[in-house]
């Protein structure tokens, strides 16, 4: 019974989100308890009421218009009958899942000017107990009361005037809320923070760039580590059995100008494995050493188990922005597999140690150098999905090459809070681009199928036990694909770009799928008589 039902009939207190519920989120398919649905980053729903045979009957149940300007990139949470969503500029709403009617609205007073490279986005909340946690554009972490939206605590993590911000959804692990900072274009030194969910006291900070005297600082020329970027702006994943947190890191800065930061630039463009209790590094794997193409590796890591070469392995899979699909051993970080999933012109292959074999003349030049994939990458922050039924990894892929420019003579100055980029990339005007949803077998890196979308698609994916993969295009089509074959089974035009991934939940025994398009949230379900 949902929260509203409980209140109406019994008046019992609001259900608590416990650490156990989070660990076992997959056993509560009626809810959507965290950013990726469960700790393994799979964004998979075990619900199968909506499936391949009836998806054509999906019908609109309600629409919630936030009226907050800007295409939303948020993933809602659904807890005991209430949906919690954020919007750009740090609004948050609680919405009745039966009717789409709002229950409360939180609006943050933000500074007039902010250093946000890519829009004032927010990608969602985390929950524990009766609280919700929000990372803000002005680099605070805020705990909201889930029943009222009122602030329980609010702490400043960093100085927003110096380019720090939060855009990703936090992740709760045990009694801590974990957030990764954004601002890789502003000469920051990136970090991942953990805060006590009760008090807001900071429990630990892991700098994504080693400091003076620490191992790895030698991978930065001079003191360039102090402003080397490596943000951590997309939510990570967590393995409760291994008690390990997996989190991706972003580009080194200045992003396309390399001469003043010679070296591998650890731990930029890496997957890092941390102890969530202490923030201590367990291992790291760097995908793109000394990146000069803006290939953040902030993707959601997918934790899955498979038998490889006759041996059961605990794996972590990532479709990287640099154009390669990787599989690592998530216990040790050992490299197992790296295969291109899109056009790649910068590296011949990934060698046996997981290091790219970089081709000559692929660095940005003063007059511009065409390299594939584009600066936005073969994929980007968009949520991937893994179905334990099909045992395939699904993700959004973008087929584009870019001209990358950087002039060695023009070293960008470091001005805290101002862009620290050094150059530019842009598409080749005469080349056509398209997008695709791809299904990859994580055992081999082989592309099993792809569904082509028109240019400008920019949405994540979501898979279900109903044999479906949901995606969206840049023109507003919300699309359901057959998870086995990639065949399109259903779509609806929602009138504005879809730039996030769907989630699913159940209310009154009916499975719903929700997606934001533009600045509205749309809820679909099968008609009541089904």
């Amino acid at each position: 019974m949902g929260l509203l039902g409980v209140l109406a009939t019994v008046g019992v207190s609001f259900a608590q989100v416990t650490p156990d519920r989070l660990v076992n989120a997959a056993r509560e398919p009626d809810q959507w308890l965290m950013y990726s649905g469960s700790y393994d980053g799979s964004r998979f729903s075990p619900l199968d009421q909506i499936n391949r045979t009836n998806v054509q009957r999906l019908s609109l149940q309600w629409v919630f218009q936030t009226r907050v300007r800007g295409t939303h990139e948020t993933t809602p949470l659904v807890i005991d009958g209430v949906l919690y969503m954020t919007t750009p500029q740090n609004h948050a709403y609680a919405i009745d899942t039966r009717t789409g009617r709002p229950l409360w609205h939180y609006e943050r007073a933000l500074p007039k000017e902010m250093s946000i490279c890519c829009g004032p986005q927010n990608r969602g909340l985390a929950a524990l107990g009766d609280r919700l946690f929000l990372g803000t554009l002005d680099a605070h972490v805020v705990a909201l009361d889930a029943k009222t939206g009122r602030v329980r605590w609010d702490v400043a993590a960093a100085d927003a005037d110096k380019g720090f911000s939060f855009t990703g959804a936090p992740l709760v692990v045990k009694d801590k809320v974990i957030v990764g900072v954004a601002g890789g274009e502003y000469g920051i030194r990136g970090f991942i923070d953990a805060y006590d969910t009760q008090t807001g006291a900071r429990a630990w900070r892991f700098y994504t760039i080693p400091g003076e005297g620490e191992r790895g600082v030698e991978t930065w020329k001079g003191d360039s580590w102090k402003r080397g970027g490596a943000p951590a702006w997309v939510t990570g994943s967590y393995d409760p059995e291994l008690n390990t947190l997996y989190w991706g890191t972003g580009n080194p800065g200045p992003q396309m100008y390399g001469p003043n930061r010679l070296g591998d630039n650890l731990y930029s463009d890496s997957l890092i494995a941390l102890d969530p209790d202490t923030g201590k590094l367990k291992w790291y794997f760097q995908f793109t050493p000394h990146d000069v193409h803006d290939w953040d590796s902030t993707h959601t890591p997918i934790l899955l188990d498979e038998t490889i070469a006759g041996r059961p392995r605990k794996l972590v899979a990532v479709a990287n922005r640099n154009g390669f699909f990787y599989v690592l051993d998530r216990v040790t970080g050992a490299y197992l597999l790296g295969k291109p999933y899109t056009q790649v012109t910068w590296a011949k292959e990934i060698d046996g140690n997981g290091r790219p074999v970089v081709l000559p003349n692929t660095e940005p030049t003063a007059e511009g150098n065409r390299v594939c994939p584009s600066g936005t990458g073969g994929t980007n922050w968009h949520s991937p999905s893994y179905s334990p039924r099909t045992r395939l990894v699904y993700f959004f892929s973008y087929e584009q090459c870019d001209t990358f420019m950087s002039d060695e003579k023009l070293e960008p100055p470091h001005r805290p809070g101002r862009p620290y980029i050094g150059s530019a990339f842009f598409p080749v005007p005469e080349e056509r681009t398209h997008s695709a949803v791809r299904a990859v077998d994580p055992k081999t890196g082989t592309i099993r199928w792809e569904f082509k979308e028109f240019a400008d698609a920019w949405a994540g994916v979501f898979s279900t036990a109903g044999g479906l993969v949901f995606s969206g295009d840049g023109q507003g089509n919300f699309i359901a694909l057959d998870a086995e074959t990639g065949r399109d089974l259903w779509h609806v035009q929602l009138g504005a770009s879809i730039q996030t991934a769907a989630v699913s939940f159940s209310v009154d025994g009916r499975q719903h799928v929700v997606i934001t398009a533009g600045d509205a949230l749309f809820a679909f379900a099968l008609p009541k008589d089904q």
Partner: protein
Amino acid sequence: MRIGVPGARAILAVAFVAGVSLQAAAQAPASFPEAIKNPFAGDAKAITAGAVLFREDCVFCHGVGAHGGMRGPDLTTGSWNHGGSDADLATTIKSGVPGTAMPPNNLPDDEIWQLVSYLRTLQQPPTTVAGDRQRGETLFFGNLRCSTCHIVNGRGGGLGPELSTVGSARSRTYLVDSIRRPAAQLTPNRIVGDSVSLKYDTVTAVTNDGRTIVGVPLNEDTFTVQLMDTSEHIYSLDKKSLKSFRHDDRSLMPAYDAARLNESDLNDLVAYLQSLRSVSASKKGGRP
């Protein structure tokens, strides 16, 4: 991270340039007093800083070395569409140009002046165009039949891009090139958004009953395409229902080569097109 898909990419690039101002829409456009002079004029450090800023913030539209790009005009011609004084340039950078792709840029004043310092180093002497504007207008609406497809201030057809303010947005070189070789750089179609994926190219669709439809795309998504043919008929087609569907990187506009359009007529036509300006441009006069 940075920037998004081409459409979103451009939008976000703009957002990036401008920083994020939550109240931008409510603010009056900033302008610099007419008498103000660039405090960094000729300063070597400022010129270098301006070059860095230009590479970060401006090349996407104005191209490498400011020679014109996907949306923005060539800034090296010595001719300024929106005024060429220091104050004019600074105001154009800060406030953008309404009605064009030029956005406001929320940069500190010293960075604006650094950009102005850099732009001053790129100037070529203005080219004199000896065309007859009036005769060009007659050609446009008469013998050359440009107005069959292009609308100017309410007169003309709907298949091609509107040209009512093309003189503000495009350099002479670009205009000449577009007339001589229309396929060289296909104009983005920004009617329904800011995507650079929609452009004035040629779409050919063959229906299942064997009809061939050739036209310019008005819009397109994963499943459908909407297009206009040369008779201005509008079609809405489901891609799955077509026998074949393709885009070609060519323009439906004929190439006006030397045989079709002599140099003198070309100069007259370009003089007319260059006179088509947005309100802000015509006020300024366009010269330093």
